[in-house]
């Protein structure tokens, strides 16, 4: 017991006048001072860095290559990576609890197989979709149960899940199975016009501008969240401008599904007890237990969520490829993990945002677009750059957490 004193946390004695973010009652010491000492809360720093990285890359691409920043090209970042967005969302849940899920790539392959196989067998598209999602979710659920009830490390348990899913693929068929279903075809390629007319865009931008004004007026209530809110609204304006930029602009249902997944994930993570427990476990599992939260349930559930997202991603991948094949999505788990890390989520858990993972996927997509636009750069640069970015973010997180503790 007497050792408990020893590693006395390096706390700075509270400076007179206040420590850390303080209540509102205090008279302000002048606007300039507030501006000078303004510090966006530490948790937003990584995601702001990701956003800056993404926009910076677009900027550089736009300067170097004709048409790089055209609305359709930027929108295609999403169209071509919709499945990865969904995977990254599921992975975010797992990583936020401090775990990892290596099985998602294999589950994507398995999902394409299950979908193709059931369709070939004459199932209705709806039944095929339900079956696919069920398989992925159950697999995730089982993995989660092994992890929680038997204390097996997530790394190893999901490794087993990875082997299992791949093995099941081969059990279904060694060959590629084409998908010829009309519904799938429709979902895969039916263009949805999403261009905004100038007046529509104008209204949206006006609303966003109003939001900005409101945010600045209510800055006292927003405090450290002010900058992220302003940046978010700014990004909204940029997106609106993009949508106004090309009257022919279209997208696919995959993108709609992916963005809906992101939206639902944000709601769940930030507005439900389940979501907050995910964060609490990542922060400190022991504390979460002492707070009386349902730690066991949530730990199992995040793997089920990840399994669900992997199978949904697999469906989107099936829309994209229109085939089921055992060798689909080899190594895709690494892309998903990389997207989450580049999106600013702490691999140790507890910190990170789903929007960050979306941005992470967009960054990965931009790298690919870069390489395809350039023509002289070889495809392997994708991997090298992704590795370098992962390193950059891991080291950045390390520095940030070290400074805090």
């Amino acid at each position, binding site marked *: 017991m007497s050792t408990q004193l020893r590693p006395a946390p390096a706390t700075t004695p509270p400076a007179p006048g206040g420590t850390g973010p303080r209540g509102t009652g205090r008279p302000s010491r002048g606007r300039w001072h507030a501006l000078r000492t303004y510090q966006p809360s530490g948790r937003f720093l990584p995601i702001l860095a990701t956003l800056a990285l993404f926009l910076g890359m677009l900027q550089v691409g736009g300067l170097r290559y004709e048409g790089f920043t055209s609305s359709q090209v930027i929108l295609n970042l999403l169209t071509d990576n919709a499945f990865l967005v969904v995977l990254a969302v599921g992975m975010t849940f797992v990583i936020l609890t401090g775990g990892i899920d290596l099985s998602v790539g294999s589950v994507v392959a398995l999902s394409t197989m299950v979908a193709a196989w059931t369709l070939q067998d004459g199932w209705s598209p709806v039944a095929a979709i339900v079956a696919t999602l069920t398989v992925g979710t159950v697999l995730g659920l089982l993995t989660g149960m092994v992890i929680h009830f038997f204390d097996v490390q997530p790394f190893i348990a999901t490794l087993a899940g*990875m*082997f299992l899913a791949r093995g099941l693929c081969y059990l279904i068929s060694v060959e590629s199975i084409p998908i010829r279903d009309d519904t799938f075809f429709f979902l895969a390629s039916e263009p949805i016009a999403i261009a905004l007319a100038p007046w529509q865009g104008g209204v949206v931008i006006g609303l966003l501008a109003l939001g900005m004004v409101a945010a600045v007026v209510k800055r006292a209530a927003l405090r450290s969240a002010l900058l992220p809110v302003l940046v978010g609204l700014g990004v909204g304006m940029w997106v609106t401008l993009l949508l106004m930029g090309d009257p022919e602009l279209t997208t696919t249902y995959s993108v709609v599904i992916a963005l809906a997944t992101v939206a639902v994930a944000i709601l769940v993570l930030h507005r439900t007890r389940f979501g907050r427990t995910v964060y609490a476990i990542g922060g400190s599992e022991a504390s979460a237990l002492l707070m009386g939260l349902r730690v066991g349930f949530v730990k199992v559930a995040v793997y089920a969520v990840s399994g669900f997202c992997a199978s949904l991603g697999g469906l989107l991948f099936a829309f994209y490829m229109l085939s089921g094949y055992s060798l689909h999505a080899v190594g895709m788990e690494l892309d998903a993990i990389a997207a989450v890390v580049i999106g600013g989520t702490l*691999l140790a858990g507890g910190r990170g945002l789903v929007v960050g993972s979306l941005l992470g996927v967009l960054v990965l997509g931009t790298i690919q677009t870069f390489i395809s636009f350039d023509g002289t750069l070889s495809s392997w640069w994708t991997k090298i750059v992704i590795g370098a970015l992962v390193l950059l973010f891991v080291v950045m997180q390390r520095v940030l957490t070290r400074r805090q503790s």
Partner: protein
Amino acid sequence: MRDASRVFSSTLLWPLLVLLALLVVNVVANPGFLEVRVQDGRLFGSLVDIVRNGAPVLLIALGMTLVIATRGIDLSVGAVAAIGGAVACVYMVSSPDESGLGTALVACALALATCVALGLWNGFLVSVLGIQPIIATLVLLVAGRGLAMLVTDGQITTVNNDSFRTIGVGFVLGLPVAALVAWAVFGLTALLVRRTALGMLVEAVGINPEASRLAGVRAVTIRWTVYVFSGLCAGLAGLMIAANTSAADANNAGLWIELDAILAVVIGGTSLAGGRFSLAGTFVGALLITTLAATIPNIGIPSETNYLFKAVVVIVVCLLQSPKARAVLRRRRTTPAPPAPPAPPESPTPTLAKAGTR
């Protein structure tokens, strides 16, 4: 001897039994399985193929054992192996004397040096920067194959050098060179680890890092060393894989081999939580994995389902190692369960340290 019997009963027994069972299954399916015949002064047979094909996994598992013993993990070995093979092949192809023995030697040295450098990099991230091993080695896992393709310029580089080819498919005294090399390295390492103090210090760091620090063990150096060694082993394995086909395939050389290696280590009885390690166990584990891979086609199941069997093995082994699962099994056997004994009074106030901060 009491010691030896205990080790046998706890860690080596099960993998050995499974290995034996696999062999029996093979013999039943194919009575000629165990046959080894001499032809052109070489040994031929399924068993010879198993030891030859198992050489790269064995080498990588060897390096992985030491890494895992320090509470670490090295995910990048497959990618490092690919880079090693790529460096060797590209050097040979670009040298004026592509098929010379000297060229092959320089190529191998160059490849191994590269892999040692990559091991240094991993070790730096883990031991100096203090990044979690899974994450630190993830960087090279992601980027490594890209680097290998950078070296080979995205081509499958084929070389025409018989000396180099020997590492993969050659025979000396009737035995496959790959297996001989792997076994020699294995033996040397076992000797090095147990004859010097490296093994003891590695285990000390893995079992109780803080106590080791207070006893003056330079944990940073020890950790760093094992990652460098792991890189070296991966390089050797990469050379074998490349020599096997006389080509460097940046995309597929050593694909998933890190998982096989980790599996071999775990099957061999070394806990992923670090600490005591068993090189003999790793040896058996690696042999088991290779035999499993050979068994499946031999008994007439498509070899692609290999994965399914591996999954089953991983799950079974992990459940056997998990204290919780064992407790459940034990409780089934001996009812009623005694009340969980509370922590001894000496332990400090509730263990509220964050769970699982490995």
